[in-house]
């Protein structure tokens, strides 16, 4: 780290005596620097830099002190250095909007009005007096030409025209506590003031621009949440969001950026089609939630919303009803219900289950208790069993039921049903959930099937058929299939589907649909004859084919080569056939 030096030690390091002035320090520094090979000794260089900076700073402070002691009029810069906290009016003197924030503060002294932004004739007397106030810095700014927005403003609106800053501050500060939101008229007026100031800022030099930016940041933060409608536009004009998450993010900007993101989320969640909209509305209702009110709202969504808000937009929690939130936050705790009512509720649930289990041919008699949904979850769709049956049909053929699968391989049946249910509860349609369970069975069939010498042939024929089908969607889809074994949106022909189902049934009946063991990468040497056939079929040079076989080529090449090689191997009767097929 940079070494700390006392001012006297710094001067000693530079070879100077106490009281050396700025030019002497620079001269000594330059001489020392030229004697040093900085690349060879970075530490010495860092020490020298530090000594120079410390010496310069203390020399500057000493000069300022001497000036002050000698009662000489201090120059602006030295004055700054000497006074710990300069009055804001002094540093902001050049700014048109230098007035303090609060409307009841006395008019700012020494503030000049931006020459360009003043309509010459119809100015009110008071600001004119300010303009000619003796302590206004004369000619502090060059006129940059009137901002165009002023020309279009209504000429009668004198206060707004002359001091949009004051008008804005007046609009945003409210006597009431908590401050109400601005009404439409106020908001329109405030936006107009803001735009005038933003237009001025766009025309301004960097220091004025910075002052307007800081002033607006303070104002918006100080009058939050009344200032919320102005934030988006201001942030865009000053590019505040590009600072978000940066090491040097200014605290006031960081504060506003968090609010801006919260505001955006709030706008989105208030739209009825947002997935968390129901939860949002529910949590805004006043008072404790009654147990029957909870039925329409999913607890998962509520938890998701609360977790999200607390993690990303903590300030939004103020929009929610505290009582409501805590009533939802209690673990499924029915303390608000009396004991007899609770008993009745449990009884009802039991009855309902009893009823369902009878009315559906006792399908659920052997169900795994672990997979039973907890009692407080949303009731199961009455069509659930029907949908589940459809999913089983899709994976194993129309004559098979979940009951059959349970008998054959209970672990597969549980996993199948758990997957189906979790898809549904995540908002998937029954069709989508069916697709997911079918893919699941398909993957197990493929991975387990290729480890079994008897099934290998049939398994890989189907694999090839699937590759052929997805390849019609282009190489990307094919590469995706080879990676994840998901066929995605591709529909397979009926014949392929039937064969898949038959194989799945065969494997289920012999208990071969267990969780696939991770297989070690296998390798096999591919005879030149097959390589030749692949090259011919794909039209790729040998180098590319070899690269694709060791998974080092692009997705398109790999797909084409895999396909051609699989086809060629299946048609071939050589001794290494089995070994090669194992590698797919």
């Amino acid at each position, binding site marked *: *780290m940079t070494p700390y030096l006392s001012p006297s030690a710094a001067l000693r390091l530079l070879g100077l005596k106490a009281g050396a002035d700025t030019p002497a320090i*620079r*001269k000594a*520094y*330059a*001489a020392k*620097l*030229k004697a040093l090979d*900085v*690349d060879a000794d*970075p*530490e010495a*260089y*860092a020490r020298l*830099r530090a000594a120079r900076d410390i010496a310069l700073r203390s020399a500057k402070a000493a000069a300022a002190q001497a000036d002050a002691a000698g009662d000489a009029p201090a120059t602006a*810069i030295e004055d700054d250095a000497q006074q710990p906290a300069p009055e804001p009016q002094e540093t902001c003197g050049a700014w048109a909007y230098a007035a303090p924030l609060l409307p009841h503060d006395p008019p700012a002294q020494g503030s000049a009005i931006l020459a360009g932004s003043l309509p010459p004739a119809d100015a009110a007397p008071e600001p004119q007096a300010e303009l000619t106030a003796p302590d206004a810095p004369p000619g502090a*700014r*060059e006129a*940059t030409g009137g901002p165009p927005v002023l020309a279009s403003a209504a000429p009668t609106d004198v206060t707004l025209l002359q001091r949009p800053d004051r008008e804005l501050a007046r609009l945003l500060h409210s006597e009431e506590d908590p401050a109400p939101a601005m009404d439409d008229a106020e908001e329109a007026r405030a936006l107009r003031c803001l735009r005038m100031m933003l237009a001025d800022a766009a*025309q*301004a*030099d*960097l*220091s004025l*621009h*910075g002052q307007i930016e800081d002033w607006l940041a303070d104002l918006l933060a100080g009058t939050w949440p009344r200032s919320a409608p102005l934030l988006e536009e201001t942030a865009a004009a000053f*590019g505040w969001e*590009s600072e978000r*998450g*940066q*090491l*040097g*993010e200014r605290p006031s900007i960081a504060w506003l950026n968090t609010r801006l993101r919260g505001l955006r989320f709030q706008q989105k969640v208030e739209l009825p089609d947002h997935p968390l909209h129901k939860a949002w509305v529910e949590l805004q209702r006043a008072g404790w939630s009654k147990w029957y009110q909870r039925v329409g709202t999913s607890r998962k969504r509520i938890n998701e919303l609360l977790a999200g808000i607390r993690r990303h937009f903590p300030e939004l929690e103020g929009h929610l009803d505290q009582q409501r939130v805590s009533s939802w936050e209690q673990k499924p705790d029915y303390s608000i219900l009396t004991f007899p009512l609770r008993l009745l509720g449990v009884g009802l649930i039991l009855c309902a289950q009893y009823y369902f289990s009878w009315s559906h041919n006792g399908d659920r008699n052997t169900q795994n208790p672990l997979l039973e949904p907890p009692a407080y979850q949303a009731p199961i769709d009455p069509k659930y069993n029907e949908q589940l049956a459809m999913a089983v049909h899709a994976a194993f053929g129309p004559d098979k039921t979940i009951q059959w699968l349970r008998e054959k391989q209970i672990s597969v049946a549980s996993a199948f049903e758990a997957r189906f249910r979790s898809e549904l509860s995540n908002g998937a349609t029954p069709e989508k959930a069916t697709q997911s369970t079918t893919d699941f069975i398909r993957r197990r069939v493929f991975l387990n099937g290729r480890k079994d010498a008897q099934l290998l042939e049939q398994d890989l024929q189907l694999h090839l058929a699937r590759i052929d089908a997805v390849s019609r969607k282009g190489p990307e889809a094919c590469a995706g299939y080879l990676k994840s074994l998901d066929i995605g949106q591709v529909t397979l022909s009926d014949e392929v589907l039937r064969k898949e189902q038959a194989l799945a049934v065969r494997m289920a009946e012999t208990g071969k649909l267990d969780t696939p063991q991770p297989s070690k990468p296998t390798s096999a040497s591919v005879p030149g004859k097959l390589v030749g056939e692949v090259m011919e079929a794909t039209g790729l040079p040998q180098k590319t084919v070899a690269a694709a076989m060791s998974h080092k080529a692009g997705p398109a090449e790999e797909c084409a080569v895999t396909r051609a090689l699989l086809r060629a191997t299946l048609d071939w009767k050589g001794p290494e056939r089995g070994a090669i097929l194992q590698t797919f």
Partner: protein
Amino acid sequence: MIVGIDLGTTNSAVAVWQDGVPHLVPNALGELLTPSAISMSRDGATLVGAAALDRMATDPANTAISFKRNMGNDREVLLARKEWRAEDLSALVLRSLCDDVEAHTGSRPTEAVITVPAYFNDRQRKATRRAGELAGLEVRRLINEPTAAALAFGLQDQEDREPFLVFDLGGGTFDVSIVEKFEGVVEVRASAGDNRLGGDDFNEVLAALMKPLVDPEGLLAKLDAPRREAMLLRAAEAARRQLSTADNATFAVTIDDRRLEAPVTADAFERACEALLRRLREPVVRALRDCAFEVSELGDIVLVGGATRMPVVRKAITRMFGRFPNSTVHPDHAVALGAAIQAGLAARDAALEEIRISDVCPFTLGVDTIERDQFGGYHHGVFSPIIDRNTPVPISRMGNYRTVQDNQKEILFNIYQGEAREVSGNILLGSIKVPVPPRPAGEATADVRFTYDSSGLLEVDVTVNQTGLTRNIVIVDEADRPSEKEIAARRAELAKLKFHPREEAENVALMARAERAYEDFIGDERRIVGQWITDFAGALESQDHRRIAEARQVLTERLDTIDASAPL
């Protein structure tokens, strides 16, 4: 001999330090700037510079420009059925510049100082260094472009200068540096930039603005994408040039036998670029804030880079600083001249005995860490800076880190560059793993030392305090650097390319220009240009030097006339 090279997005230039002053070296066409363009023609010959740029009109699919924007990433362009990385193409430009120096001074340069945008990250710097190596140059140092310009500006006289600001808006990158000069020391106080902002972006804005106006019938949509883009960008470049001197310009494209035209005013252009102009402000503010200067404390505002010629940009600068910028240095030459001064410094030239330059590291460098919050939760990927941005270089700094788990076996340090608090927003430069002795969490500690040298290359040392074990990586030499063998193989690949002999350079460039003109005109004019091309080709076939020289002069004059009258 050491040369200074400005390897630009749009133009490149080379300068040598001779007799105590930097000199720019003209290319085979006698020009000081060589466009950074490469074209590989159907007959297998490779064109560099103005000739290649003209072929952007006739054969855009086999021509590459602005490739500096892809420096350090894996994007490749397809020219003449081969893939080329940005560094390969840059190497071709560098080699052509070396040829120029050899022709001019009689000896071939072996070492070079190459300029890079100050805000180029470590990967982009590495790629630039490799480009130099591919061109057969030893890169003695990489110097930041605004720093080079500051040298050229600061060493115009012996006077001390109050802090000045170098505003470097090139074809593809934007840099700002605040520099002081006293007692022969040129000291960069702070640099900031945006390596995705440049003159090219203004062209794109103009092309996007004019595309619907110039082509209401959608004729352009029928062309293939590279040709359409090239056509629109060329028209935008031409219109932008007109707008540098006039308030109105014509945006015109020629498709087959139709000329499409639409007028554009300076005001409309300015409105369209507002977002770009706003992006100019942020790096300036950041640099000022980092070195704690007020705008009023700045002396000159020095403009560098071709894009600062645009009136819209000048207007924005004047507005930002409340004063007119200084344009005493040539915006296109200053960087190369500064690089030559640095070359003189590197060669320890006597004339530069009393000059020292000190630069800063313009971005923050650090490692990723895991933080534990008050609830006991872990937050992964928190950036822990070791070298803060705008620290003077060379610099060596150390940070101390400890284990988060009991009996942790090793610590993995990922080294990042950037300004975001979470490392996911920063650029990963490399990783280093050290084994630590089994201890309760927090008791095994490691010191990480970052050393950043004057060329902007980073070295990292990690020492485990309990065992004294040290690991070291020089980021530039780590895994992703191709081996010597690979570099040699790629150099051989580049050497296979055919080039026209130097004495033919003028003829080749003129022919490319004539073909470009043929493409730009329609009707009678096109027929006439076609006739000129035939005439010139006839002269070339005769192989009679005198006849060729005459024909060349005639064709040059003719093209000058027709280009001056053209709307493009």
